């Protein structure tokens, strides 16, 4: 598998797994309206994942399509960060994660608009507007919960503390091959961190919350090392396709 394929797969797996986690909120969100909002966001991310997986399969050239890559890879072959795979916690933690993730994705897709990989640039052009809305949705809730009641403030801060250590993995560029940076296919995620932090911290402070000072979590998603919860997530996501190969409806 070339470094180019691995890079596209890592991007794809982040949004695919984030989408699957968000789907877990359907019928469980605080209000029906929020069910729909989270489902919409999840489906946007799934759309991005489909384009990226299809592209990765084409680059690989071994006949794997989006379904083969989503449903028939095992845990160690997934390259997503731990941030997106962990259980989603309560609604406040979910909004904290969505803020961290979609602000990163907005910076990422903005940078990839000029990728020399035409497909990546095209996906970026569509995705950048979607994730801008996701970040806005998260911001709205972080502000309201952070600057809401005593209880909502406490839970929003707790959610932020829970998710914060996992954000750092997004900016670890060691998985991106130097040649991909030279040719302008990829972006070094560490260059996105400063703008990301500026935007996230602004929201956190406006919400009267405290920026966590916790150390980054030990992770390894980009090398295929995942948390215990990843296995359960994949089992739910993949079991239908594996039990009934080729099924359609």
């Amino acid at each position, binding site marked *: 598998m070339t470094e180019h394929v691995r890079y596209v797969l890592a991007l794809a797996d982040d949004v695919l797994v984030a989408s699957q986690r968000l789907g877990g909120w359907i019928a469980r969100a605080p209000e029906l*309206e929020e069910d*729909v909002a989270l489902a*919409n966001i999840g489906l946007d991310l799934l759309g991005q994942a489909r384009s990226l997986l299809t592209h990765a399969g084409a680059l690989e050239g071994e006949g794997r399509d989006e379904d083969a890559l989503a449903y028939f890879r095992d845990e160690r072959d997934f390259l997503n960060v731990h941030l997106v795979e962990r259980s989603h916690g309560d609604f406040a933690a979910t909004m904290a994660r969505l803020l961290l993730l979609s602000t990163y994705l907005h910076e990422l897709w903005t940078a990839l608009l000029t990728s020399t990989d035409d497909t990546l640039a095209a996906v970026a052009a569509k995705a950048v507007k979607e994730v801008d809305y996701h970040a*806005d*949705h998260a911001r709205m809730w972080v502000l309201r919960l952070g600057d809401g009641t005593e209880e909502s403030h406490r839970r929003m801060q707790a959610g932020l503390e829970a998710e914060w250590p996992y954000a750092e993995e997004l900016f670890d560029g060691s998985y991106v091959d130097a040649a991909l940076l030279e040719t302008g296919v990829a972006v070094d995620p560490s260059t996105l961190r400063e703008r990301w932090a500026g935007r996230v911290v602004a929201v956190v402070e406006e919400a009267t919350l405290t920026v966590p000072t916790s150390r980054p979590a030990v992770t390894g998603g980009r090398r295929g090392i995942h948390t215990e919860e990843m296995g359960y997530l994949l089992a739910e996501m993949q079991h239908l396709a594996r039990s009934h190969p080729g099924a359609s409806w």
Partner: protein
Amino acid sequence: MSGVSTGSTGGGGSTGGRRDWPLWEVFVRSRRGLSHVHVGSLHAPDAEMALRNGRDLYTRRQEGVSLWVVPASAITASSPDEKDSFFDPAADKIYRHPTFYEVPEGVEHL
């Protein structure tokens, strides 16, 4: 907050004991439409969130380019009980319709 003051537009407000989000009426202007048209209602904690919920619930399939939300409680609706006195008297006043004019020749649009 509990729904429209009278009438049946958008249904009632809160039921049950817990504190529900207030009800909002949603109006969408379609791409080629001239005016905003009522499309339904939703619950939201405040106006900003109501706009976003409206976007997610009522414009998912490119239905619109502009969105209004109005607190349902701000709408005063006519009462079904007054329907007869409100609307029936208009039924037999055909002179209110512009049907007694000869359209001058050559006028395409009137």
